[in-house]
């Protein structure tokens, strides 16, 4: 509002008496030249120039104000799509329990191996290979991923030495895409099964 008020004040400066006098003076001087018809509708060039500059300035200020907030605006479309794609690959291809016939069934052994070994950020070869399998690393794109497994009551899943969550530490000031899958962890040799959420965070 303050900016608008300032603009209004500036607006009136362009239409101050000096300009009006000049326009009237020109009109007076033309009256004797014998122009046909009315001379209304003519404006001093400097007034039009002034008004144009003012309007351009106002437009620029508004344009610039969008830019001011750009760092805080969401551009999460790309990371969210990447998160959804990688969570689908993770749950339905990499971790799927063999012969389960269900797309949301995760093998406990595969989950443990993926979380403990493949997402081990200190071993960049393994981590990069996991990123490639998830479709998050190629010549064109580079993302980071952090995977966590939690119970339905939001506590972290902590069974048989699983490193959870794993992957690089989440950055605070970066837009992160999240995809959450509700899956059944099964262990066909022990008969164990439990429903958990697998959250895939990509940035």
């Amino acid at each position, binding site marked *: 509002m303050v900016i608008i008020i300032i603009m209004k004040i500036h607006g009136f400066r362009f239409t101050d008496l000096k300009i*009006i006098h000049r*326009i009237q003076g020109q009109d007076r001087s033309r009256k004797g030249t014998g122009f046909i018809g009315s*001379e209304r509708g003519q*404006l001093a060039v400097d007034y039009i120039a002034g008004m144009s500059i003012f309007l351009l300035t106002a437009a620029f200020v508004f344009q610039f104000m969008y830019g001011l907030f750009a760092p805080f605006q969401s551009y999460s479309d790309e990371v969210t799509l990447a998160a*959804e794609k990688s969570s689908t690959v993770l749950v339905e291809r990499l971790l799927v329990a063999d012969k389960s016939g269900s797309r*949301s*069934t995760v093998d406990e052994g595969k989950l443990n191996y993926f979380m403990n070994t493949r997402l081990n950020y200190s071993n960049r070869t393994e981590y990069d290979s996991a990123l490639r399998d998830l479709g998050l690393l190629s010549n064109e794109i580079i993302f980071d991923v952090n995977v966590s497994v939690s119970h339905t009551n939001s506590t972290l899943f902590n069974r048989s030495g699983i490193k959870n969550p794993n992957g690089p530490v989440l950055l605070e000031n970066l837009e992160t895409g999240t995809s959450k*899958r*509700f899956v*059944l962890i099964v262990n066909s040799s022990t008969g164990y099964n439990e429903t958990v959420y697998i959250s895939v965070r990509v940035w």
Partner: protein
Amino acid sequence: MFDEKGQLHTLEGVASATILLMVMIYAIDATSMTPLTASTSSLRVESELQTLGQDIFNVLDYSEANYTSKLKYDIINWNGTEYIYDGSKYVEVGNATSQNNLNNNLTNILSSTLVKQGIAHKVELTYLINSNNKTVPYTGSIIYAGAPSNNAVIVSRKIVLQDTDNVAATIPDIDPSSNLFNIVDIRLVMWRM
């Protein structure tokens, strides 16, 4: 009559209208539309609900070899009663004081997922019945939750029942001459309140 100052007022009018327009555009663009904004169809929310709903059916429909899945078990044992969530449990519609609450695999999963996230939901079954020598679909409701909003998401799963499944009397045998008992389409409708 011959006052020519009107031209200046016109340009000032144009200038102020432009500023007003820019302010309005800026204000509208700056206002965020949340998933709860009335009559806003958020594709992101719908997509999340769809994934969650499919995951719920996938998890419920999983079974070890030669075992009946939890989802099929619940359908077989459904007694035809309609239930509604009362804030803590699924009670009979119109008979909330009775102790015949619905407590099965389906409600266990729904309580730990949709209820916790504040997602309204209803569950319907469509199965075949024989009526006037014709086989027609019939829809019954297991969990009722009023009319869904325009942004509701539906996920469904088809379950084939055999004579050997010992289905409760609610769902009829559409072909007594064969082992096919009925085909049930279970639908989960989810929406944000």
